[in-house]
Every structure is written in C-alpha cells, then in structure tokens.
C-alpha cells in the first residue's frame, strides 16, 4: 500500500517534468496499455492456477458474480445522482 503510493508519487513527479513534451505523453500511453495487458494476463494465470477456485467455480462463481453486479449497480446508480447534483455544473 505505502510502496504503491510512493511509486505513484514518483510517477507524478516525473510526469510534471514532461508536461511540455507531448511526444513523451504518447509513448507513455503506449507503455501504459501494455502494462494493463500484462497485468490482466497475470491475473488470469492466478485464477487459472488456483485449484480451489476452478473446482467450485459453479456455486462460488454464481454468488460472486451476483454480489459483484449488485455492488457495481448500487454504487454506480448512487454516483450518477451525486454527479448530477454536485459535479456536472463544473464541467465546461
């Protein structure tokens, strides 16, 4: 947790140094895309190699997806109300 925040802050500081270098922004976005791909691939490997997850995938998956969907729906719907009343007016 602390380590992640340190790494993020280091990135932001480095970013501040290249505010006026648009070519580097583009290069950074490419790297960012590939980092996302790598992370999702590794996440897949963790799921695929976890025996307990794979064997009980039916019941466990059903409960997991239900809680996932309802958690997302609840927070997204409430956030839409918050957005409408507090944030939308600040958009240009």
């Amino acid at each position, binding site marked *: 947790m602390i380590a992640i925040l340190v790494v993020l802050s280091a990135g932001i500081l480095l970013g501040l140094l290249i505010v006026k270098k648009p070519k580097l922004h583009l290069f950074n976005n490419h790297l960012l895309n590939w980092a996302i791909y790598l992370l999702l*691939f590794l996440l897949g490997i963790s799921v*695929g*190699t976890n025996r307990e997850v794979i064997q009980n995938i039916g019941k466990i998956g059903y409960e997991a997806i239900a809680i996932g969907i309802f958690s*997302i729906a609840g927070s997204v719907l409430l956030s839409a109300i918050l957005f409408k009343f507090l*944030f939308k007016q600040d958009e240009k």
Partner: protein
Amino acid sequence: MRSSLIIFSFFVAGVLVGLSGKLPSGYDFDKFGSYALYLLMFLAGISIGSNKNSWKVLATHNYKIIWVPLTIILGTLTGSALVALVIPTLTLLESLAVGAGFGYYSLSSVFITQLHSHSLGVVALLSNIFREVATLLATPIMVRYFGNLAGIASGGATAMDTTLPVISHYSGKEYAIIAVFSGIVLTILVPFLVTFILTV
C-alpha cells in the same frame, strides 16, 4: 470497446495458460503480478502528472470529493445487502463482507478466509476480481449513461491503481485525482470494514 476486448482476451489467455498446467515451476506469479502493478502505477503517475488538467480538479471540486467514496460505500453495501435477500445460501453479513472488498480482491479474500471460511474467501476473490474486470470492460458504457463518476464508483478501491488508466481515459484526466482519492480512502477502509462486518 475494442480496447476492452483486447484487455479481456489477455485475461482469458492468462486463465488458459494457468489451466494448461504448463507453467515453468519455480516462478512466483503473484509476485510477478505485484511488480507489474508497480510498473502500471508508475506509468499512470506519469500520465497524471504530465497533464495540466489533473490539478484543476482539486481547485474546482474541493470539499465535494469526500462525497465520492461515501457514496460508493453506501451504494456498494446496499447492493450487496440485496443479494442476500435473493440468494438464500448467503447471509446478510457474508454478502456485506464480500461487497466491502470494493474490488480489492487480494486483501479482502485473505481477510475473509481468516475471519470466516475458505469458501467465502474464494467468493470474495472472484467477486472482487469480477468488479475489477467489469470496470475495465464496462467503464466506457457506464460513463456515457451514468456520468463521469461511474467508472470511479464501479472500480471502488481499484480506482487508484488497476482501473485508473481506463477511468482517466473515459472520464477525463481531471477525474484521475478524484479516482485516486476515492480509491485510497476505500483501500484503507477495506480491512477495517471487513473485520467489523464479520465480527459484530
């Protein structure tokens, strides 16, 4: 949508590689994953820092941003509570505990395994992975219909790291700071909330 499909195919490829059992032994893939996460955070940081608009948000939204994580907590727990009504095999507290992971699957699944049971720990792992993957895939659509906070709400704790690039891409870079703030608040709360729910 194209980028979401590419992202998802990398995830599926990973699952297939994992299932194949043909991985070289001796590698710690979870450790590898956390290094990849650091790389991702660093690159996302550069992207935030190099954009002038990123800093505008604190000036324009100021006190308002505290409402973002509070809204996400309320919405998530309300949604999770409804699941316990629909699925009889889950109790209210079990369902709330899984929801209170806010997408932070590694920590919440470990906590729930320790405090409750192994099977609920796996439910928490899958449910919160689902939350992260669904956020990566659906943020473009959710932002269009539910406004610029939708990706941040859906991502929960992951809005500060893994889902941050997608959120900042579709909601605008000025929302990246809100995403990080909300993600940090939720991440810090996960161990406290999960413990509280399972020990009351």
